[in-house]
């Protein structure tokens, strides 16, 4: 069976203008620079990278929570990049988001019932009684109970709040859920509970996830394919197992080797990267990774690397262009 593409991102760009002074020319931060990928129905697509690499901006741009500078977003065969605000609002019934911080993303003045029925109300679905019934149903699915309906967010722990955040996204039965670091703010023992919940919901509702995270252990566990981002660019994209067992791009190699060992007797060949991520305000010429790259060549300093398809494994690096 051929996988059916649900979401196609084509040459997505998001630039921010930075004012430097009255008469100075504006500077541009290229937060997302020419990113393209496809997400197939029913899969979990991971986006990984360090802070500031543009993974969250990409996620928000897909939902048009942030207007992009240019590019196309094809969702179920329709380019949604130019849709009006109203149409986009209707479309978000099918694409929902789970945010990182369960403390900041729930309205503290609303009860759980109000929080959960709001998306249904906005989209004009069901009658009042049915909405309450739906809310109870979804609460039970995410491991809470009817008893919690009239509580406020502050009465819950971090893990429970994230369950509510997930319930709020799933109650509309969307096709696509963009999860932006959904487990990063949680304790280890709670993290695994929430990951289990996400996996269960995917099985039960045939959800497609775009899973944004910097935690490579979690990404390896939950995703089918992974895109690695560095300074606004997608540097590598492949099946999860391929990325983790046979990384091609020097950045991916370094990123994987930096993950802490899981047992004190484990030996690991470390590629310790020198320096920090450069400022996106004036990224390096040529390949943006070249100042930190252990395999840097002459050509990397001047020319942007081409995107090379090695058969199901896409990498943007001069090393693989023969």
């Amino acid at each position, binding site marked *: 069976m051929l996988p059916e593409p649900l979401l196609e991102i084509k040459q997505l760009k998001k630039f921010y203008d930075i004012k430097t002074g009255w008469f100075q020319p504006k500077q541009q931060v290229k937060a997302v620079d020419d990113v393209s990928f496809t997400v197939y129905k029913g899969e979990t697509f991971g986006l990984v990278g360090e802070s500031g690499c543009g993974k969250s901006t990409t996620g928000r741009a897909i939902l048009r929570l942030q207007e992009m500078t240019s590019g196309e977003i094809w969702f179920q065969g329709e380019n949604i990049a130019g849709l009006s605000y109203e149409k986009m609002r209707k479309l978000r019934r099918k694409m929902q988001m789970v945010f990182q911080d369960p403390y900041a993303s729930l309205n503290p003045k609303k009860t759980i019932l109000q929080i959960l029925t709001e998306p249904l109300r906005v989209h004009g679905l069901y009658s009042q009684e049915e909405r309450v019934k739906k809310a109870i149903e979804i609460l039970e699915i995410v491991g809470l109970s009817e008893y919690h309906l009239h509580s406020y967010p502050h009465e819950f*722990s971090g893990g429970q709040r994230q369950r509510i955040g997930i319930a709020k996204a799933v109650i509309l039965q969307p096709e696509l859920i963009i999860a932006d670091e959904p487990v990063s703010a949680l304790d*280890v*023992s709670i993290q*695994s509970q929430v990951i289990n919940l996400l996996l269960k919901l995917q099985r039960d509702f045939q959800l497609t996830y775009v899973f944004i995270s910097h935690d490579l252990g979690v990404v390896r566990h*939950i995703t089918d394919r992974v895109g690695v981002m560095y300074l606004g660019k997608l540097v590598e994209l492949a099946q999860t197992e391929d990325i983790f067992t046979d990384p091609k791009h020097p950045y991916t190699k370094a990123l994987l080797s*930096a993950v802490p060992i899981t047992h004190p007797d484990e030996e690991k060949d470390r590629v310790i990267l020198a320096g920090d991520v450069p400022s996106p305000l004036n990224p390096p010429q040529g390949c943006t990774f070249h100042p930190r790259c252990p395999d840097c060549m002459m050509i990397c300093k001047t020319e942007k690397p081409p995107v090379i398809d090695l058969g199901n494994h896409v990498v943007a690096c001069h090393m693989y262009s023969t």
Partner: protein
Amino acid sequence: MGKESPLLEVKQLQTHIKTAGGVVKAVNGVDLTVYAGETLGIVGESGCGKSVTSLSVMGLLPKPMAYVERGHILFDGRDITELPEKEMRKLRGNEISMIFQEPMTSLNPVFTIGQQLSEPLRQHTSLNKKQIRTKIIEMLRSVGIPRAEQIIDEYPHQLSGGMRQRAMISLAMLCEPKLLIADEPTTALDVTIQAQILQLMREIKQEKKMSILLITHDLGVVAEMCDRVVVMYAGQVVENADVRTIFNSPKHPYTRGLLASMPNSNERKGELKSIPGSVPRPDELPQGCTFAPRCPQAVEKCWQERPPLLSLTHQFCRCWLYTHEHQEVAAHAT
């Protein structure tokens, strides 16, 4: 264990915090020892009392809300629990120093790096201005900060997260302390920067032969850095052992649960093993074992009586399951 001399000994420490809802026992009878030249890890989830323990050692508790109710803290054989503030200041930054989780909030934004780094030297040494400046530049270089001569006159906001944490480490290392307390030193950093900082801490430890008390929730960091591990839950030590023993044969159900819930130890896409429920709030601790409500192996006794810290062959463990194989009761918490 027991060959080297203990540098820091915490005995039956109880730290209480006064809140509007009554007194919270944030740390409830903690025993731990850091030997000279070793790295001891304290592992636990938020609210288990690991940070309060470290603040008690440093004498940095927000008084008068938080105070040491009972117990002793011995540093180099000297009881520092009741030390007056003036004496404590001679110790702090000089013989014990601390690095914090968030380098942006722990550096003062209105002073340059140089101004902040000269403070411990002015306090604890008799160097003159010029000597202080050379020493700081030397220190900044040794922690891998490029352009140290310029960075010394820059403000914290001009540095990146990794650079700030390096500056924090150099601040802590200036007086060559015997003990470095690191409270989640890499939690706010990216993985590649985390690897750099951990590497740096290992090198400094090797070179200066100091001890590190590393507080973290990340078992990966523990596996990388620590010689021995103390696992805390709800204000108490539940397990205390060699790092290999913790990873190879953990005894306490909580330690086992933590290790099992790491994604790497589970089949991909499969159900992760997890600990049900969540950490109890300090004001609603159960009467028996604090972990009993979440424990898969809890028996009747666990709900009634709090278990003592048992001394087993390779480790200490606070669990009723092992009463038949223990040798002696190491400590009994109330």
